[in-house]
Every structure is written in structure tokens, then in C-alpha cells.
């Protein structure tokens, strides 16, 4: 990180370079609006018979009338955006700060870029997987139904792109309100995406519940922001951090920012589906189509983590030397409750999508445990030692987890999405005999499941290991040195977040049960009823699944590169602990 941050005003020289992926998204967005509408529309100059073609509307050209076209446009857009993010890493990442006057708006650094990778990657995979899902008709079919359905293709992908856009803004935002805007953009899009399947009771109901609870949560969050603003007079992250630090001990704890902190925690807590804010999530996942549920479980969760990171680690940053972050106990309890609740609830769940939803609640708990550990990074001046390293390690673990979560969690949803193409997937028994019907699909699901459970050598294991290592590193800190200098220390002398690690590994053992149930259902039971033979579906979604499988295994076996990337991103958070 030797290069300084370049400040970029709006539409400045470096603006397009800095925001290249976002601009690509915008371009894709417009392309999606325009291209499917290109047709032989003409405009008659009033009073004349001259018809000037203006191409938007009319009888559309066959090539643009293809109902699959929007899918391709969105996919290509997302992939290009993804690649452009990836390319920005090439030869050392140049950091940019988009500013407007004295206000910092967006920061482009390793951290935000990595999240963009997660978002774009996940949504691109979902876009690919959705391509054959929505009903489509030959473009020559002129019936209302056909037209209507073909138009919906574009709607769906536009919403995907806006989701991506909103998430990208969240990742980049340096102002809490900008972050909130991005969050809302992504949220609104996802509400609609969840409810997109409006021909079914479940789809609409899921969408509605997700919408209501989500709105309440973001209302609470917004109110929290307003209180924070009332207290500090700014929502700029940097300024807030300074103000917060100054206001905390030893002067005592002012009420306003603490209330605000609580409210904002709720807002983001809903996004990561932390208990008890997770209730709508299972319903939403069950109601939504599988790729959308996959987005909610991965990208949306990552977005929530970005919010939490910004709020907890930057604004309410745990800097004081003699004490831990103010939110430590609250978040610790939240994480334990979340992971345990998620796992226990998933144990008996018979709906695979709800099961995955609860499992994603549990995963949220693991990440919250990681965040809690960061909160404790400097818990004891002597024992914590190089706590900054530990905090970076935990952050690395969280980032790693989010990245690989896209591989296996989304992958699992994509497998379900193939199954959905033959009918509803609301029972575990719908998975029966998958190993006979589609051996490779079953193997993929198997890999996703054991990866979710954290069985080596899958990436899920690596991510859990990193998380445990990070937490333990925080908890143990420099004790090794102290012990060898003669101090008699026990595990009780380590920070209590060590117990979070224990609870976490025990939880992952509990989770084994329901992941195994999926595997058993696929491999043990015979196919049920009329669900026989290979599944119908296009090659696109299979490609996406294949990519997920490869990544799930690859990042487990050869994690080094990704760890370094995540470490770099974690470092680039650039706060007090990271600078040590």
C-alpha cells in the first residue's frame, strides 16, 4: 500500500478508471433497457409522411426479440464488471477516493474491491443460473401471455443489475448515508426479486414478509443514522470515528451514539440475518427462486457484513487500549445466539431451502463471532501482543469465508434451482435419488454440503479454520511469549472470545447432522414418485455449478492465493489496528 490514495472528484480524470466496474454496470443497465426494445419503430414527422426510424419499439428485430437476450446482456455485464474488478488488482491496486468537495463518498481499495468481486461474482452466477428459469416463448408468438413473459426477462435482469449496483455502492461508501442508499437500492431490488415469482403463493408471501421486516429493519437503521447524525453532525465515516473515539471512555458513554449504534446494528443485523432478525429469511428463501435465494444468502449477507464492518470497526472502532469495544458483549451474545439458533432450527427442517436459510443464519453467526473477536483485538496491553495482526487475521477469515460462501452456498442453491425446474422443491424428499438421476449433480451437492459443514479439504473447512484461528489468535494473543517468560496462564487467562471458537466448532459439529441428511437423501433413498431420470435444464446453470464446485475445492486445497488477497483487503481497511 505504498501508493497514496488519489482523490477523485466526480467526473474527474480518474473517474472512469476508478469506477470502471460500476460504470460498466450502469452501461449494462441502459443496454438492458434499450437493446431488447430495438425494433422497427418509426416516427412520422408530423404533417408529413416521412417516417424517421428511431428504433425503440415497434416490431422488434428478431435478434433483439430473443427472450434470452436480457439474460445474456446482464450476465455479460456482470462478468465484464467482475473481470474489470479483477484487472484492477493487476500490478498492485491503485486506491481512489471519490470525493465531493470535502465530503468523501466512495473509497476504492482492496477491501471494497474484494467485496465487489463477491457481489458481482455471486450475482453473475445467479444470472447465468436464472437464464433458463423464467418461462419464455418464441418471439414470434404474439400472444399477450408470451409477450408478457418475455418482457419479464428484462425486468428480472434489470433488478439483478440494480442489486449489484446497490451492493457495489455499499462496498465503496465512505459516508454512512451513501452506504444506506446503496443498501436500500440493493434491498428494494431484492424484495422484488424475491416476490418475482408472483404466480405462486409462496413467492408473493416470501416477498411480502421480506419486504415488511426488511423495511422495518432499515427504518430502524435509518433512524439510528439520524440519531448518529444528530449527535455528530456528520455521517462521514472518518469523522464519525474520530468523534466516537473522543466520546468514549474515559469521559463516559454518551447515550445518543450508543442508541444509534444499537439501531444500526439492527439494520445490518437483518441483512446478515442474525438472530432474532432472521425470521423473514427462511420464508424469503423458500419463496424466492433458488438463484435469488442464493444471492440473499451470499451477496446480500456480505453486504450486511460490509455495513457492520463500517459501523462497528470504523465508527465504533475498538481502539482503547485498556478495554474492548463497547459492543463486544452484545455482538458476542448475538453471534452465539445466531449460530446456535440457526443450527438448531436447521436440524429438523424438512425444506431444503429453509434448511439452507437456517444454515446461512448459522454462518452469519460464525462471521459475527469473528467480528466480535476483532472487537477484542486489544484486550490486554501485555497479553494481546500483536493484536493488530490477529484482527487482520480474523478479518481475513471473514473475507475468505464470504468469498468461498459464494462458491458453496450459492452452488447449493443452484443445484436446488435445477431441481426446481421439474417442480417445487419444498421437501427434503425431493432430493431423493439424485445420485442415481444425476450423479455429477449429486457429487456437486455433496461437495457443497461438506464444504458448508466444514469438512476438509473443502474451502468451507479452510474458512472455518481461518475463523477459528483468527479468534483463537485474538484470544491467545501474546500468551505464548508470556508463558515462556514464566507466567502461569490458563485458558481462563485468554480472552473469553476463545469460548466463541469452542461454541463455533461445536456448532459446526451440530450442523454436520443436517448437511449429512441432504447427502443421505441423495445417496441413500430411491427417487420418489414421478421424479425419475435425468433433470431437464440448460447447460448454463450446470456451468455455474461446475464453476462453484471447482472453486469450492480449489480454495480448500490451494487457499494460499485467496488468503493473501483477503489479507491484503483486510489490511486495506486501514484503521488503527490494521496499521500496527
Amino acid at each position, binding site marked *: 500500500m505504498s501508493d497514496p490514495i488519489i482523490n477523485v472528484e466526480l467526473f474527474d480524470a480518474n473517474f472512469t478508471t476508478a469506477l470502471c466496474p460500476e460504470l460498466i454496470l450502469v452501461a449494462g443497465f441502459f443496454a438492458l433497457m434499450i437493446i431488447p426494445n430495438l425494433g422497427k419503430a418509426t416516427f412520422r414527422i408530423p404533417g408529413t409522411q416521412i417516417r424517421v426510424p428511431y428504433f425503440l419499439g415497434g416490431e422488434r428485430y428478431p435478434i433483439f426479440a430473443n427472450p434470452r437476450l436480457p439474460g445474456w446482456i446482464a450476465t455479460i455485464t456482470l462478468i465484464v464488471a467482475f473481470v474489470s474488478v479483477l484487472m484492477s488488482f493487476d500490478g498492485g491496486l491503485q486506491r481512489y477516493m471519490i470525493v465531493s468537495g470535502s465530503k468523501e463518498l466512495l473509497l476504492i481499495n482492496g477491501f471494497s474491491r474484494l467485496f465487489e468481486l463477491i457481489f458481482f461474482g455471486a450475482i453473475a452466477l445467479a444470472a447465468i443460473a436464472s437464464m433458463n428459469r423464467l418461462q419464455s416463448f418464441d418471439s414470434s408468438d404474439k400472444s399477450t401471455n408470451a409477450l408478457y413473459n418475455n418482457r419479464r426477462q428484462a425486468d428480472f435482469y434489470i433488478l439483478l443489475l440494480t442489486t449489484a449496483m446497490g451492493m457495489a455502492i455499499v462496498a465503496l461508501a465512505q459516508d454512512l448515508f451513501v452506504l444506506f442508499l446503496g443498501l436500500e437500492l440493493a434491498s428494494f431490488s431484492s424484495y422484488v426479486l424475491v416476490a418475482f415469482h408472483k404466480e405462486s403463493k409462496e413467492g408473493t408471501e416470501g416477498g411480502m414478509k421480506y419486504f415488511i421486516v426488511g423495511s422495518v429493519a432499515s427504518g430502524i437503521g435509518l433512524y439510528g443514522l439520524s440519531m448518529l447524525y444528530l449527535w455528530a453532525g456528520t455521517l462521514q465515516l472518518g469523522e464519525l470515528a474520530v468523534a466516537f473515539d473522543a466520546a468514549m471512555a474515559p469521559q463516559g458513554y454518551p447515550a445518543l451514539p450508543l442508541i444509534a449504534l444499537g439501531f444500526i446494528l439492527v439494520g445490518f443485523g437483518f441483512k446478515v440475518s442474525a438472530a432474532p432478525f432472521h*425470521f423473514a429469511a427462511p420464508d424469503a428463501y423458500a419463496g424466492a427462486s433458488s438463484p435469488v435465494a442464493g444471492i440473499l444468502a451470499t451477496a446480500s449477507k456480505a453486504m450486511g457484513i460490509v455495513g457492520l464492518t463500517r459501523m462497528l470497526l470504523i465508527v465504533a472502532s475498538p481502539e482503547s487500549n485498556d478495554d474492548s469495544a463497547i459492543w463486544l458483549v*452484545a455482538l458476542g451474545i448475538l453471534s452465539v445466539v445466531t449460530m446456535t439458533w440457526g443450527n438448531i432450527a436447521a436440524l429438523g427442517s424438512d425444506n431444503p431451502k429453509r434448511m439452507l436459510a437456517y444454515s446461512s443464519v448459522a454462518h452469519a453467526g460464525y462471521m459475527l463471532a469473528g467480528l466480535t473477536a476483532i472487537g477484542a483485538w486489544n484486550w490486554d496491553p501485555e497479553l494481546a501482543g500483536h493484536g493488530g495482526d490477529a484482527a487482520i487475521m480474523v478479518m481475513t477469515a471473514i473475507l475468505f469465508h464470504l468469498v468461498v460462501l459464494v462458491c458453496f452456498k450459492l452452488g447449493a442453491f443452484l443445484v436446488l434451482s435445477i431441481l426446481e425446474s421439474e417442480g417445487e422443491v419444498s421437501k427434503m424428499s425431493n432430493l431423493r435419488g439424485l445420485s442415481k438421476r444425476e450423479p455429477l449433480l449429486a457429487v456437486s451437492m455433496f461437495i457443497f454440503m461438506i464444504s458448508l459443514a466444514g469438512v476438509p479439504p473443502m474451502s468451507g473447512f479452510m474458512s472455518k479454520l481461518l475463523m477459528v484461528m483468527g479468534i483463537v489468535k485474538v484470544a491467545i494473543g501474546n500468551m505464548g511469549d508470556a508463558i515462556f517468560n514464566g507466567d502461569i496462564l490458563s485458558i481462563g487467562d485468554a480472552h473469553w472470545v476463545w469460548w466463541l471458537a469452542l461454541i463455533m466448532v461445536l456448532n459446526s459439529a451440530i450442523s454436520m447432522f443436517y448437511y449429512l441428511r441432504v447427502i443421505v437423501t441423495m445417496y441413500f433413498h430411491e427417487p420418489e414418485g414421478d421424479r425419475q431420470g435425468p433433470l431437464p435444464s440448460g447447460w448454463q446453470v450446470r456451468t455455474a455449478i461446475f464453476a462453484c464446485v471447482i472453486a469450492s475445492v480449489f480454495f480448500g486445497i490451494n487457499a494460499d492465493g485467496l488468503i493473501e488477497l483477503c489479507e491484503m483487503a483486510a489490511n486495506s481497511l486501514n484503521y488503527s489496528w490494521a496499521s500496527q
Partner: protein
Amino acid sequence: MSGSSSSEVVHSSMAEYAPLIILLPMLAMPVILFLGKVFNTNPTWKNTLKEGGIIALVAMGASLFISLVIIKDYIGSFSNSGDIYSLTWLNTAIWEGGSAITPIKFGFGIYIDHITVMLLFVAAFLCFLINIFAIGYMNTDPINDNRNHRFYAEFVLFCAGMLGMVLSDSFLWLFIFWEIMGLCSYLLIGFYYERPSAASAAKKAFMTTRIGDVFLMIGLIMLWDLFGSLDYAIVFDTANIAAVDSGSLQMALGMMFIGAVGKSAQFPLHVWLPDAMEGPTPVSALIHAATMVNAGLYLVARMFPFFGAESMSGELIDLAFIIASIGGITAVMAAGIAFVQDDLKKVLAYSTMSQLGYVFTGLGVALWLANSLDWHHDPAAHTIVVVAFGAALFHLFNHAMAKGMLFMASGSVIHEVHHAHHHLHHDDHGDDDEFDAQSMKNMGGLASKMPITATAMLVGSASIMGLPLIGGFWSKEGIIANAWRVALEDPRFFFPAACVLLGAGMTGFYMTRMWVKTFAGKPSNEVAAHVGPTNSWIKTPLFILTFVTLSSILLAGMGFTHWAPDSEYSFLSDKGLVDGIMYELGHAFANHDAFFFILTYVAIALSAIIGPFMAMSLFGGKLEEGEDCKAWFKPVIALNNWVYNKYNWDNSGIATSGLAVALQNRLYIDKYYDLAMVKIVAGFSNKVAEADTKIIDGAVKQIEDKSQKISTVVRSLTTGSARDYILWVAIGTLLIFFFIWGVA
């Protein structure tokens, strides 16, 4: 590869080939098994090779030959004593704390001394003879068709085990071969696997001896811990013995003795032996008379150096007393049970137990003497100890020979009775369950039909009873005399001494009863009347053993009781044969010590007069009219008839008394053992198994079950109503406030 490297040849003599004695039969086993499997119904295999019998015989013959040469060498020079081979078998190490590790090795080797030599002869000789007998017995019985190779394979392995046990140079290898014998006896008793009774007898035999073996193993471990080795050369070293604590040593030896009790079927681990008669008769002869049961005796005899060590003087007498008492109890108890047995082989089985009891008493007495007397320095004491020990060993020898012969003879009888029955009931063969060829109730008057067998039986019985001048007389008198000798010193010994004296009379009764019921009197049924003579495979060993038993006076005259226990004593060096015999006769019948003089005649009166008289008066009778028998039976049968006619009395009162019923039920010991097994052991184990499923696994299942239930409860909170979800959000918000405020 430590095993083969450190071979060390002590002497260049025939003794070097001693391992072959074990190896030949051991290698014969797979050969027989394999060939038998492959050529199962091949005529050459069946008729010429006797389904492996000949191969076994060759192996046993070779073993016997090498054994005899070694014995000759040994007796000739005594030079080949001690370790012949000493190989390392296991290398390991012990840490005694501190910074040193003691390497430990367990070796294997051949060890030859006087006890080895004697047992070696008994084992090799009897195994060989019984092999001959088995060919005659097994191969003529259609029930064994096509599976005799299994018999011979197990048989030779058994012999290898016995020979190995005798020859090995450490208690460890003694134990190893001991266990191999246990396995073979299990297999052989269960040879007729299709009979439930055989299966359960085999199990019982293995199980009972196993209990003893466990103690033996623990005893050996204790012994190892005292000496750091189990090699005879080390543990018998007087300096080493002097270094150990006598109490611990006594514990160790006591534990080992329990092993011997199991193997030699002494009270209270005797229950297996009578049941073991389920095996084919050669097996009974081999295992349960001639060899295996001697293993226990051998083990106790091997303990002699501990008792004899000066440093232990007077310290181990309690154990000696226990040994003698166990022997005494068994001698009387088994004899009592033998009174009421109708099964020919069962009588012999109890007789075996009883006689082994004698040997144990004799050993106990000898060990007591060795432990108490200053025999290292006092020549008179030395003689007493040696002779006492020698008497026990001599009884072992006599009993083995006689009992082997008796079993073979009984086998011959059973065989022929069975054939006769088969012949008579040709039509309904295959359904002859009702007929018991072993029951003496189905015999009688066979003396005329089977002269050789009857003779052998007569001589054997006489030897066991201790009729003067024949076989067991010499040794039994010695045991009784020495028991009383010790009893005068140590009053506790009145108990075993009284037991063996009483037992002498009882032996006279039941052995006579057996012979008389089988061979004298009238045939009790049609079958017995049609019994024919046996074949020559069976007769040959009977003939040889009859001779050996009869000639035991020669052995006595050669000073068996002196040289057998004492390697210092040079064979035939003191006196000539005739002098020796005269000395022994004088010693036996004209003892200078009045006490022993009287004792001798009391014993003779009990065993040779009162006991047989009682038996004859109850079970006597003459042969069927017109039946002729060999001249030497005539006086016996005549006497028998005379006593019967003159003194017959009604014993039904006694026969139905509680004691008799108890004896018939083996004093209920088996019953209570069974009860203990079924009620306590099986019941307890079922309870434990249940606890394992219900409690330990139940806890796991509870976790599974409860977690599912909790899951249902937790999921039921997701009611489906959006309002509830929002309520939870509100609650969560409050909780977050609570915890943040709580910290702040």
C-alpha cells in the same frame, strides 16, 4: 531379526535336535490337514495312510526316537542339562525411573533336566502309543469317516504342545504350549461337533482351564516382576531367589498353582474333566489321563527350586499346605463320585482326578519338606526330600502309564460294544441314541471275550489301586508315608494325610467295581454277549503298557524315586538292580520305623483288601456258564464270585441316601457353577449390555432426539406471521440496547 541371531549351542549332542521333537509333530499338523482336505476320499489316503494316522505316527515315532536318545544321553551323563538353546523372542524395555532403561528380553530355548526327561518320556511314549491306538480306534468307526485327518492334525498339534511345554526353558513358553494344549483339547473334545453335549463339554473344558490360565498368567507376571525374567536358568538361580521377597514369591507361585489346579482338574476347577469324556476315547486317553493333566503337575514340580532354596526356608510352607490340601480334597471327592458312576469312562475320569490329587498331595508334601528341612546340608534330610519328591513324580509316571492303558482298554471295550450293538441292530442304525456304549450297565462278563483288554484293565486297575508290587503301589505308599511324616511335623497336614489314606481305600473300591462290572459277572444284555475281540492296532499299545506297568518294580528298584527328582543322583550308581529292588521291598514292607510300618499295612489293607472286598461283595459274580477265560482271570473271578455269594448285602439304603444322590450329582458343584454362569455372569452381562444401549448410547440418542425436539420448538417460533417477526426485531433491538448499556 533378533530371533535367529543369538543361537547358542551348549552341547554338541543329540540334545541339539531337541527342537525337532516339537517341530516334527507341529509341522505334521498342516501337512495332515492339507492332504486330508485334498485327498479326502482317496483310497490310498484312507486305507494305507489311515487318513493321516500314519503320518502322525511317523512324526510321533521320530519324536519318540529323539526323545529316547536324549533321555539315554541324559541318564548316561547328566551332562546335557540346562539350556540347550536360548533364542531371543521378544525384545523390550522397562523404565525404572531416572535416566536408565533396562532392556528386557524374552527368550525361547530348550531346557533339559531330570523333570524334563521324565515328563518327556511319559509324553512322547504315551503319545506314540495312543497314536497307534487311535488308528485302530478312529479309523474303524464309520462316524469318523472322512474327518479323521482333522483328528490326527489336532492330535499331533496337541502332542507338540505337550512336548514343547516339557522341553521349553522358561515359564513363558511353558505357558504358551500350555495354552496350545488347551486349544487342542478344546478342539478334540468338541471333535463330534454335531453333538450338543460335546460342544458344551469342549466349551466347559476350555473355559474352566482358562480361568486357571488367567491366574497362571498373572502368577507368571508376578514372577517376572520379581526376577525380571521367566527363564528357568535365571529364576532357579539361588542367588536370584535369595534376592526376592518370599511373600511376593508365595503369591506368585500360588497364582501359578491355580493354573495348575485348572489344568489338572483339581477341586474346585475339576468340573471339566468328566465332561471332557465327550471326546473320542484316544483323546480321553491322551489328554485327560496321560499328558495334559500332567501339565499342572509338571508346573508344580517345576516350582521345586523355589521351595528348595535355602533363602526361602520355611517361608513357603503355607503354599505347600494348600497344594497338598487341594490334592487331598480332590482325591477323596473324586473317588467318592467315582463310586456311583455307571459310565466306564467317567469312572476313569474321576479316578484320574483322584490320582492327580494324590500327586498334588505328594508334591505339596515334598515341597513342604524341601522348604522346611535343611536338606542342603543334612544328607538324611536330603534323602527324605528327594524321595518324597520322587514318590510324587513316580506316581505321576505310574498313573500316566496305567491310566493311558485303562483309557485305551476302555476305549477298546466301548468300541467293541458299540460294534456289537451296531451289528445286532443293523436295521435301525443311525438311531441308536438310546443305547449307551459307555455304560457299564450294558457290559459284564467281557473277560472271556476280550482277554488282552481285560488283562490290561486288570493290571491298570491294580496299579491305580496300589496293589502291592504293581505300578502305583510304590509311589502311592511313598506319598501316603510322606504325608504322614509331614503331618507329624506340621499338624495341618493331618488333613491331606488322612485324605490320601482314605482315598487309597476308596480307590480300591471303585476300581474293583469298575473291573468287576465290566469284565466279570454275566453279560447284562444281548449286546454285551456279542462283543468280539479287538484289532491289533488297539491291542499293541495295551500290550506294551501292561508290560510297562507290571515292570514298575524294576523302575522302583533302579531308584526312580532318587534319580528322577535329583540330577545329582547318578542312575544305578549306588546299587545294582537286584539290590535296589530288595532295598525298596525292605523299605516298603519292613520299615524300621514302627509308625511307617503300621501305616504301610493300613494303606495296603485299605486299598488292596477292604476296598476291593466291598466292591466285590456288591458287584461280583461269575461269568456266564460256558464262557471260558484266560487262566489268570480265573482266580480273580473266582474270588469275586466267592465274595459276592458270601458277603453280598443290600446297599440300596446307602445307594439312595442323600450322600449318594449328591455324589451322583457331582456334589452339585457343576450345578452351582452353571447357575452362577447363567444367573450371575449372564444376567450381569445382559444388564451391562442393556446399560450400554440404554444409558451410554441412550444419552447419545437423547441428544439426537432432544435436539430434534428443540429444533421443532425453535422453528415453531417462525410462525409465518410477519407481525411476529417484527416483534422479534423489536425484542432483539431491546436486547442489544440492554447489553450495550450493560457494558457501558
